[in-house]
């Protein structure tokens, strides 16, 4: 029964690692962001294989209920991942704001340019050629 549980845990950890690997391989995860997840997966795999380490560690840290050590470790990893996500989210929302501001400023400058040249600035090569040849773009 103990062994069955261990096999289940090993499969779970391997499944997690394979999933992360596949996500990264297909470009759904950027490798830099997959790193923390891989470490989490390896943490689970390590302790599901070397299960006998858990009570030893628990004794060392004077934890009366050994599995709670694994929970603590898991929560620790998840917390780090979540903090990492908040950092990334803040960074991207900041960059997003900068881009929105750039768009507003560039759009204004483009309008000035269009007023100055008295014709719309071409949006693609085809239109550009049409304007050069004196054809009024649609």
């Amino acid at each position, binding site marked *: 029964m103990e062994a069955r549980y261990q096999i289940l845990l090993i499969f779970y950890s391997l499944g997690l690692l394979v999933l992360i690997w596949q996500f990264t391989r297909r470009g759904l995860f950027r490798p830099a962001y997959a790193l923390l997840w891989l470490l989490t997966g390896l943490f689970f795999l390590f302790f599901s294989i070397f299960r006998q380490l858990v009570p030893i560690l628990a004794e060392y840290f004077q934890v009366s209920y050994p599995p709670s050590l694994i929970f603590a470790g898991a929560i620790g990893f998840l917390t780090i991942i979540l903090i990492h996500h908040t950092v990334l989210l803040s960074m991207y*929302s*900041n960059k997003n*704001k900068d881009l*929105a*501001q750039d*768009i*507003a*400023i560039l*759009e*204004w400058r483009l309008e000035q340019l269009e007023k100055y040249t008295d014709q719309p600035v071409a949006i693609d090569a085809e239109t550009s050629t049409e304007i050069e040849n004196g054809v009024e773009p649609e």
Partner: protein
Amino acid sequence: MIPAFNEEATIAKVVKDVKEILPETFIAVIDDGSSDHTGEVADQAGAHVFTLPYNIGIGGAVQTGLRFAKREDFDFVVRIDGDGQHFPSDIPRLLQPVMSGEADVAIGSRFFYGGWKADISIQRKMGIYLFATLASALSGKKITDPTSGFIIMNKRSAEFLANNLEQDYPEVDSRVSLVRAGFRVLEFPVEMRVRQGGVSSINTIRAIYYVIKVTLSILIAKTRNYI
């Protein structure tokens, strides 16, 4: 500079009033992703309209103007609200101390002489009192109207704020950060009207979030290092 979010009812008058007082000035309306015709109305009134692709918050909108001012190397930046609550006729009086170098930043205060205006709700008074107390304590300067959006900046302070401004509700904590960064911030008494139209961006549900968020921002502004 006039940040505006859905202010089509009032923006034209604000722009025209400013134009009358300061005919030579570059008037920028930052349309913060309005869903009404704020941008068109402001354009027809003779302002330069900067259209943000979506709503990014008042601080982000103001920052757009500040970044543009920095780019164009403007000497002074005046920020007033688009809802018509500020009197553009006050601008020259507030601009004077900044132009003369007496202050880096001049801010119009409704409560300069103490006392409350009758038309402000009790919740708002409580919020303003809390922020005034906090911002005064943390900046070491007496601040009577911490949420005022009537601000006049010289080049240096405008540039500082272009780099250090909260994306939403930036007024209160920028008071602390400006003082901490060594800028001379002076308040001047002004009258303000109740908004002349449109809807305030702060409704009841947001008020609680507003208070907590701004309090946090003030504390952060106090502890952050400004170079």
